């Protein structure tokens, strides 16, 4: 069945979430859980002489941010079931303790393709993460596949 939707939904912000300041404890817990061994993510003293002069978060820390809405309410349910079809991420400014991060999400693209198992519908959710200085921390394109 052909996928029909209002294309004006593309690019419109459907979620804007400002998070509590990032704590050193959160960053360390994430790095440890991640199995990270690089001292710039784990050891304050080592991080001070590192490239950022301070402890920074593992870049994928930005993935743990969850806004209020995963999808716009106006987007009707597509297909019977969905799955995570992967992420493309562009990392920017490192995350430091005390940073206040903001995530702004839009529907970046919706498209169809056909494969061995039939027609698939893809929704690409783009989340821009910025810090309190307005600097870009990450651009995350989350691809969801529905059939």
């Amino acid at each position, binding site marked *: 069945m052909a996928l029909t939707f209002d294309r004006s939904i593309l690019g419109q912000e459907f979620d804007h979430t400002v998070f509590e300041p990032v704590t050193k404890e959160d960053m360390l817990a994430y790095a440890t859980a991640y199995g990270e061994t690089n001292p710039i993510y784990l050891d304050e003293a080592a991080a001070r002489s590192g490239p950022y002069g301070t402890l920074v978060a593992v870049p994928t820390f930005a993935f743990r941010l969850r806004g209020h809405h995963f999808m716009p309410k106006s987007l009707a349910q597509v297909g019977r079931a969905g799955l995570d079809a992967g992420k493309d991420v562009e990392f920017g400014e490192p995350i430091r303790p005390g940073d206040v991060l903001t995530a702004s999400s839009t529907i970046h693209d919706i*498209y*169809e*393709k*056909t494969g*061995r*198992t*039939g027609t698939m519908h893809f929704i690409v959710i783009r989340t821009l993460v910025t810090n309190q200085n307005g600097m870009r921390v990450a651009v995350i394109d989350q691809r969801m596949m529905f059939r």
Partner: protein
Amino acid sequence: MIIDLHTHSDLSEDSRAPIETYLKWLQRKRDLLPIDGIVLTEHRQWNARLDYRALEDKYGILILRGAEVETDYGHILLYGVNDEMVRRFDFADVRLNAQQVVTEIARLGGIAAPCHPGRPTIGLCEHYASRPPLEGVIAVEALNGGSRKGENERVADLMARHGYSGFGGSDAHLVSLIGVCATEFDRDIGDVEDLVEALRAGGYRPVDFRHRLRAH
């Protein structure tokens, strides 16, 4: 002359392979993969403004462009794409009418060739089992580097039954898969017009380099 007729760069949403990295890989693997050129056949799109001449000059590898579109008879590779074809068809439409694509692309100066015909759902063989054959098909992709076991094997019968010529392509979406299957032409190909003419005329065959890579 050996050309990989079916490749996807990171312009296709399901590939992460930059074009220049393909070229670096081919240069590095020259003894195993004697590829003289590639055709970029991005999924469901055509951008007339792209120009890869600087990369061609830098790496000494011919870079041509086509497209892979999706139809009611499965996926079809288009060679010799021009503005008129883009006006005639919405390349992003996954339900294009295959007969119209084959007929109109030929009329407008190109050639439309079904790819991975042995693949379930999106290959010609499955559709031919229940529907009349397309008119005007000259060649099909007889060897596809991304096919699963049995998929390429189904194509020989299709070609014999309908008199199709066969070519090969890697269908690479990853750098290390570029050039694993390709097409050997008896004539030199210098541009996309040469390619279309050659595909119509015959004098080519699929070539498989996967055994070389496995043995290395």
